[in-house]
């Protein structure tokens, strides 16, 4: 390496190929390696990593949102289901209660009906019994009266029948109701 005053003002040609070409070729290669290693590789890698990280974070957030939505939907469905079930239960029980009430009323009605019927029957029986007793008593009274009047003339058995027939004929028409 030498430098003296005579070369200080010296210029190379404006349009010519010289050693500068070789220097610049090497310089360009070195600059390429410098920029690749110290600028592009680290920055591109860094940005790529950050992008991936953000992407994965967004992905996670989306997944969480999805699962939250699924949960929400299932809860809503459960809630709706529970509501419906409640309604169903109320309806069922109302129905049953109504049925039960209807049955009770019906049973009560039939009870009343049968009690009425029984009462009627009892009444009828009592009436018949009373009529029969009355008939007996009348016939006895008649016989007694007749025997008092006729004394021995009257055969009790023959006349009883006769009188009974008479009374029953009269009675039938009189006791009918």
């Amino acid at each position, binding site marked *: *390496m*030498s*430098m003296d005053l005579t*070369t*200080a*003002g*010296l*210029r*190379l*040609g*404006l*349009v*010519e*190929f*010289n*050693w*500068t*070409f070789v*220097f*610049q*070729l090497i*310089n*360009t290669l*070195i*600059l*390429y390696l*410098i*920029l*690749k290693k*110290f*600028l*592009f*590789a*680290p*920055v*591109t890698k*860094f*940005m790529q990593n*950050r992008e991936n*990280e953000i992407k994965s974070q967004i992905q996670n957030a989306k997944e969480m949102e999805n699962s939250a939505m699924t949960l929400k939907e299932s809860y809503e469905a459960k809630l709706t289901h529970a509501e419906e079930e409640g309604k169903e239960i109320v309806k069922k029980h109302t129905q049953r209660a109504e049925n039960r009430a209807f049955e009770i009323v019906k049973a009560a009605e039939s009870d009343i009906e049968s009690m009425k019927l029984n009462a009627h029957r009892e009444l009828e029986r009592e009436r018949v019994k009373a009529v029969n007793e009355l008939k007996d008593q009348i016939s006895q009274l008649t016989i007694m009266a007749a025997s008092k009047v006729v004394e021995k003339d009257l055969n009790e058995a023959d006349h009883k029948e006769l009188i009974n027939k008479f009374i029953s004929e009269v009675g039938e028409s009189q006791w009918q109701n």
Partner: protein
Amino acid sequence: MGTEGFGPRVAFYIGDIPVSETVTVTWLIMAILLVFSIIATRNLQKEAKGLQLVVETIVKVINNLTKQNMGEHNANFAPFVGTLLIFIGVSNIIGLLGLRPPTADLNTTMCLSITTFVLTQYFGVRQKGLGGYSKGFLEPIPFLLPLNIIGELANPVSLGFRLFGNIVAGVIIMALLYGALGIFTESLLGFAVPFLQAGVPAVLHVYFDMFSGLLQSFIFTMLTMVFISGAME
């Protein structure tokens, strides 16, 4: 080689090999980018802010640009595309610091465009096989083979010269302007106080260094992506 003209100055010699200011400025840019890369990516936080936001944006934009122009499967070209974009971009605007842009040297631009050309051929052959790639030169009709070859060879030349031409034009115009302004102030005042040079060139710096420079770095990078992915399709 001489003392006149607009060629790059020789900074020093290694043996007999002259090292021009193109190379030294390139080393400076490399050092700046190395330090920037290390500092900016030293402590990456999940929540980006400050310098990290800047590098993340740069890397993201270049990654997306590569994917858009070359397809998702060619995303690993991003460091190369980014090297071109960042190196050419920084080179073009370093004129603002009073340094000579490395891209104002045909050796730099042709070095980059020939790299693109070699990569284009390499990935074309790797993707389609030598036969399949060569067959592309016979399309649409075999008669056009010479034209196709010339067209392919013209790509790196036009790529390199476009960038070189644009940047060196800016350098020359700015040098002429500074010279003219210097002479103008000297004749105006009678002594050399370059006060006109303080504000007047700013407008042209904005155009040549900022606008044209960034535009050319973008054009070079876009064409590189188009060539390489075109050869692979």
